[in-house]
């Protein structure tokens, strides 16, 4: 039995009762302490009076926490270590209660960290921060299971030390089932089993491993592990959980990288900065989907107004997500703990945290062109050029217009007067609020887009007035004149398709003024027609969250004949429409603007106000036009030429920006300039402290914290630097982290059993030298497939999973791998194995995810899994990794089977055995339908019931049936049919567990 550290604590606290309680607790509950007490390991601790010490044991690792203001004494606290145990209780383990005296404690903590960094010697450096060096192989005189595999030497050395006895190799049938589920996430097919069992060559097993690693099924399963960690999904999450329709390209990239055995350092670099480092490679660009894979709050980022505190909070949390994912996925550190205060356990200060966060200060999430980044440098240059040209243009305009200033000023006065006259008239409005907005086109990346909306008056009618009401939506940033078109025309026709038409107004060549909250009356002059069409050829700029995008919207259109509105509740058609929430074609004619219901009765009979207002806006338009003309006339040939040249170039640049918008992916979009990042007191945006620039951590041995960024003003260079720093051969964490993940999935238990945390609060390695050996292998070979091969060909991996009482008394958790761990299938393994057995599985590779739900787009989109048609659709009979993953509403079937929650990094899945799981496997429509298909398949393949049953067992349990089983299942099947037998077998422990 491994001896644990033991400690007796002497208290001199003033509170005697507390002392007594503490001692009692230790004695009565921590049997461990008692046991070891008897063994005689006693340590005395003597520390200052005001200090309370908490102690406990975790994963064979003693923990102390001290509540004290007396930090100076920490280095004097003696501590105790057992053999083979690295612990570091003196500094970072010590909890400093943070509540009181915020400032003092912050200073104290920084001192503590400083101290820990400066006084770090090789000996008290935390194990995972130490330089990674290839360890020597253990010297074993005798191996109980001789093997050339270095893994076995490390493992068997531990057996000897712990007096454990290893287990023999499992039989071939067990091995192929274990190996295929482990490398492919699927059961072996009958053909694969036959091939392996009949292969008499000495390296049959190695050949099997090679075959499995070469198959694309491998990447599909191992990619899922990485996607769990990232965490990946096809929607944003939170409220208004919108789709990310192009996110799948990153998912496919991950799968493909595993299959191609991409060199690990490249793989890491691509995911953080592939768009900058390898802009010419499509896959490397898509790889940056890693940064943006996590959840994102649509409402906070898009709908929330710019300049609010809430917006800033949203952005801090957004960068936190990017950073936390990066550091915990690649380096297994819980850096996000240092957002509000210095890390309680690891030597990571708040400054360290914000420095690293600033790496992502120049990106936002969004849909991005895959091949645009190819020209990212050009893009940036273009952007700078565009800004320069705009500035030149502004200066030119100002200089020129100064010459005509008096004339312009005169006009400006007239314009102002006209605007005042064109008052916001209330004649039309009632006090009844409206519950709809109006019509809204789709949203476009450029203003120059043509679309129309048309009204069917029902019959040919003479028209007195057309009245346009601009929108001012209530469920969107409060904007008067929202969506009012810049250029448009209105036509009238008797023909639905406007083959022959009359033009009423035409502002398609010059910009119309934005009427804001004023309605726009247009005289119809008794012209006749049945259809009225508003054709727009230049859209309004929405400018949401600083991005230019364009649309056309109108709250209401009235077509008056006398005082009757002919358009009310008629049929409205359009070339496009968003049809969502308060926006719909039908709301264009619902006798209500976006604010209030209309009341026509208050119009006078000769429309005097309409006439007056029409005159005013026409005048206004005229003044604006005159002003433009004056301004234009001020240019002489020389300045005009100059201006035209600038405009020409601007048009070119802008055109290149909007071209080629088909190949999108979800990734990081560079901002013009990285935002300033400050240290935030307690993580609150209202407590800004000093500004920081990117830097790495300085607690790692042999790796400088200097990121060596070529130009901090270029956001891409920040990411490049971090990518290089993380993937550096000298980074002690990266290689250990990745090697441990691989080990973890093979054995169901890591060498470090907290794959996302190699810090002081995580688990300690059971085999530190082995981990370093594997990490060094990975660093040298850069090949995950070679690492898999090394692991699965070891004797350690090939052992039987049977329990041995003697061993389990020493090491009940099998931490030292004296047998193989029996593993329960993952949610995806279960679903995929069922599809494979039923013969319905389609191996079609990647592409957009298949939907297991009914989707309805709306203000808040809905994802409904209750319709079984979606489960039973052939388009969904693909590997589970290719499903469309929704964050807000996860798939209930897979969820019940402990599938990873896509909202949070899941390096290690839970394993539960619940009644709801039993019900899901018994009754889910998916299983029952697949059982029917399996029945059909068996009946087609075999005519004899006995043969059908034998084959059924072979397909599900991957072994030959015993006579007894055939007999029992025969009578069951006779009564209930083959589908019910399949259902039964899919509920067996033997199906769900892999020996």
């Amino acid at each position, binding site marked *: 039995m491994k001896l644990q550290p033991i400690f007796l604590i002497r208290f001199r606290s003033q509170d005697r009762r507390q002392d007594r309680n*503490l001692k009692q607790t230790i004695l009565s509950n921590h049997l461990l302490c008692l046991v070891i007490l008897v063994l005689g390991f006693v340590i005395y601790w003597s520390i200052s009076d005001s200090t309370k010490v908490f102690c406990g044991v975790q994963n064979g690792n003693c923990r102390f926490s001290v509540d004290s203001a007396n930090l100076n004494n920490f280095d004097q606290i003696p501590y105790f270590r057992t053999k083979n145990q690295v612990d570091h209780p003196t500094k970072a383990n010590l909890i400093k209660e943070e509540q009181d005296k915020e400032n003092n404690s912050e200073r104290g903590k920084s001192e503590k960290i400083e101290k820990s960094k400066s006084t770090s010697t090789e000996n008290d450096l935390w194990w995972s921060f130490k330089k990674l060096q290839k360890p020597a192989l253990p010297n074993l005189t005798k191996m109980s299971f001789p093997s050339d595999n270095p893994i076995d030497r490390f493992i068997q050395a531990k057996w000897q030390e712990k007096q454990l006895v290893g287990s023999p190799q499992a039989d071939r049938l067990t091995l192929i089932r274990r190996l295929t589920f482990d490398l492919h996430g699927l059961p072996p097919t009958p053909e694969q089993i036959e091939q392996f069992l009949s292969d008499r060559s000495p390296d049959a097993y190695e050949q099997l491993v090679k075959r499995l690693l070469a198959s694309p099924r491998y990447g599909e399963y191992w990619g899922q592990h990485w996607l769990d960690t990232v965490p990946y999904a096809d929607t944003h999450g939170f409220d208004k959980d919108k789709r990310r329709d192009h996110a799948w390209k990153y998912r496919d990239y991950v799968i493909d990288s595993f299959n191609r055995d991409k060199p690990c350092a490249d793989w890491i670099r691509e995911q953080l900065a592939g768009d900058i480092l390898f802009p010419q490679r499509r896959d490397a660009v898509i790889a940056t989907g890693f940064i943006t894979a996590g959840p994102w709050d649509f409402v906070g980022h898009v709908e929330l107004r710019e300049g609010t505190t809430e917006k800033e909070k949203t952005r801090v949390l957004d960068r936190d997500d990017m950073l936390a994912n990066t550091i915990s996925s690649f380096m297994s550190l819980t850096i996000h703990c240092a957002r509000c205060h210095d890390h309680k356990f690891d030597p990571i200060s708040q400054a360290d945290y914000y420095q690293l966060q600033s790496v992502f200060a120049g990106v936002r999430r969004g849909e991005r062109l895959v091949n645009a980044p190819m020209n990212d440098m050009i893009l940036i240059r273009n952007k700078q050029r565009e800004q320069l040209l705009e500035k030149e243009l502004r200066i030119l305009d100002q200089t020129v217009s100064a010459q005509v200033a008096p004339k312009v000023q005169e006009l400006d006065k007239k314009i102002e007067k006209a605007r005042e006259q064109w008052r916001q008239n209330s004649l039309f409005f009632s006090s009844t609020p409206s519950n709809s907005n109006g019509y809204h086109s789709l949203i476009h990346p450029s203003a120059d887009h043509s679309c129309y909306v048309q009204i069917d008056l029902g019959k040919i009618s003479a028209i007195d007035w057309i009245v346009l009401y601009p929108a001012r939506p209530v469920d969107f940033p409060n904007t008067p004149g929202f969506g009012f078109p810049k250029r448009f025309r209105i036509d009238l026709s008797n023909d639905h398709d406007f083959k022959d038409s009359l033009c009423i107004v035409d502002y398609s060549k010059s910009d119309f003024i934005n009427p804001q909250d004023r309605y726009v009356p247009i005289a119809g002059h008794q012209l006749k027609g049945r259809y009225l069409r508003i054709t727009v050829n230049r859209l309004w700029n929405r400018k949401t969250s600083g991005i230019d995008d364009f649309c056309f919207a109108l709250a209401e259109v009235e077509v008056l004949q006398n005082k009757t509105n002919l358009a009310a509740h008629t049929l409205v058609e359009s070339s496009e429409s968003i049809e969502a929430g308060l926006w719909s074609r039908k709301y264009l004619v619902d006798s209500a603007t976006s604010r209030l219901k209309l009341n026509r009765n208050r119009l006078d009979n000769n429309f005097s106000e309409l006439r007056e207002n029409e005159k005013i806006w026409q005048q206004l338009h005229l003044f604006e036009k005159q002003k433009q003309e004056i301004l234009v006339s001020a240019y002489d040939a020389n300045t005009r030429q100059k201006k035209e040249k600038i405009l020409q170039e601007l048009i070119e640049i802008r055109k290149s920006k909007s071209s080629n918008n088909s190949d999108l992916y979800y990734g990081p979009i560079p901002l013009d300039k990285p935002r300033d990042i400050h240290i935030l007191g307690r993580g609150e945006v209202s407590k800004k402290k000093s500004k920081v620039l990117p830097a790495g951590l300085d607690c790692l041995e042999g790796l400088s914290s200097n990121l060596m960024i070529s130009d901090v003003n270029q956001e891409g260079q920040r990411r490049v630097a971090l990518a290089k720093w993380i993937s550096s051969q000298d980074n002690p964490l990266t290689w250990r982290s990745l090697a441990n993940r691989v080990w973890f999935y093979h054995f169901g238990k890591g060498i470090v059993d907290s794959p996302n945390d190699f810090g002081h609060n995580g688990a300690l390695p059971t085999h530190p030298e082995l981990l370093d050996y594997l990490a060094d292998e990975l660093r040298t070979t850069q090949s995950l497939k070679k690492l898999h091969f090394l692991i699965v060909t070891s004797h350690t991996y090939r052992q039987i999973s049977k329990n041995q009482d003697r061993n389990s*008394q020493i090491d009940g958790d099998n931490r030292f791998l004296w047998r193989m761990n029996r593993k329960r299938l993952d949610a995806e393994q279960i679903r995929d194995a069922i599809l494979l057995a039923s013969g319905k599985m389609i191996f079609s590779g990647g592409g957009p995810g298949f939907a297991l739900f009914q989707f309805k787009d709306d203000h808040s989109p809905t994802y409904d899994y209750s319709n079984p048609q979606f489960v039973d659709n052939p388009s969904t009979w693909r590997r589970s990794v290719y499903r469309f993953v929704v964050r807000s509403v996860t798939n209930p079937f897979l969820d019940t089977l402990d599938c990873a929650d896509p909202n949070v990094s899941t390096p290690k899945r839970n394993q539960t*055995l619940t009644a*709801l799981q039993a019900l899901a496997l018994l*009754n889910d429509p998916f299983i029952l339908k697949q059982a029917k298909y399996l029945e059909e398949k068996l009946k087609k393949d075999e005519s004899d019931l006995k043969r059908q049953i034998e084959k059924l067992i072979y397909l599900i349990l991957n072994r030959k049936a015993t006579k007894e089983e055939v007999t029992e299942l025969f009578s069951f099947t006779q009564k209930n049919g083959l589908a*019910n037998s399949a259902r039964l077998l899919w509920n067996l422990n033997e199906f769900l567990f892999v020996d």
Partner: protein
Amino acid sequence: MRISPISDQSVSVPDLTRRDLLLRSGGGLGAIALAWLLNQEEGNANGLQDKVETRNNKQQNRGLHHKARAKQVVQFFMSGAASQCDTFDYKPELIKNHGKPFNPGGKIELFQSSPGAVMKSPWQWKQYGKSGKWVSDLLPHLATCVDDMAFLPAMKSKSNVHGPATFLQATGFVMPGFPGMGAWVSYGLGRLSDNLPTFVVLPDSRGFAPNGPANWSNGFLPAQHQGTIVRPTAKVPILDLYPPFDSGIDRSIDQQTQELLAKWNLRHQQSREGDSRLSARISSYELAAKMQIAAPEVMDISKEPASVKKEYGLDQKETEEFGRNCLITRRLLQHGVRFVQLWCGADNGFPRRNWDSHENIERDHGIMAKSMDQPIAALLQDLKRLGMLNDTVLHWTTEFGRMPCSQGSLGRDHNPDTFTNWLAGGGIKGGIVHGSSDDWSFRAEDKITTGYDVHATILWLLGIDHTKLTFRHNGIDRRLTDVHGEVIEELFT
């Protein structure tokens, strides 16, 4: 699985697993590990001391860290943000200054709009009960229960955005991926009944609230702690409880399947002794069978007397849906469900189907309030009559409040700076008001409370110290209350 420390309150041992403890104390492995796993199945964070409890067991209120005052919880979540100044937070200033410019001093930051004029509630206010608590005419039924309720009118939220704020009230974090309060309670206390889930969620029949089921997920806790969705009027009220109708699988087939399944599983287990997961899985099928029998019984309200149904409002269209959910809640509690969460309000779509009344408070709050007022009051009275209120905490909440000024002309924008919660039942002093907002119902002013405090308080009533109910995830000992939360002792009897 990590567990929280055992017993003594003055010591915190952050990450000691029961498993470590048991295994290292040298006990017989098989028996202990089996007990451990079966216990895990029971969702019990306190180890071996809390075996499956039943209602008959009189010693049920032992609690995890101290003696419990209650053992069950009902949480009513008004999704979309229910206005405090139209329900429970009476402010004469608003009536006096109605229509005048809103100028409470300081920076005003609204979600969608610029502040409009001061807007009084469209409803009249009256005082009720011995306590004389002011309640608006919007909630005539709940008003009759004020002497049983403890009000928290000085609640504050960290966010004024629905998604994060709803997460905050439901899970204690503004980010997704954290377990709901019901999941924590299930993890901490385990089940009271061995044939129903521990944590049941009744969503609004019109759809999910913002964030969807992520609001009641188990997060990183084991899956048995997740909220089980029950939709009483849906075609499939509980997912996968039975085979679908068209599958042709009847009770006889199910029985034969279970028998043969058990036989084969036992045979499989024989050569694999020492793995308690195998037997735990066998017993999970027994539990499943029990649940198949118990669940429909609980949901069947046909035998409830007509007078009771009427009380819950099942005879009126507006209250029928939520009334049924409340009546079923009572039955779930009677059958030992630990935590029931009822959602009043769906997503933020249009026409409005939750409390997010930006456009018209009178119209939209009117509909929402009507649907829940009578049913919740009926549930409270019913529990009281049955003597169950003493053991059950009722908690009425929402993600944040609404502005005392108008948006548009008739609506109200979001207000994270003050909103109202109330608690009633087990261990809660009735007829009290803890804290207050300013004269405008604009900012919480006195004795400010947060969702963390309410979570800590409810856990305390259940016998749980919120600082000790922890779970290690990705290197952090996670709690429902993050690093915050104060138990509001003033609310206790």
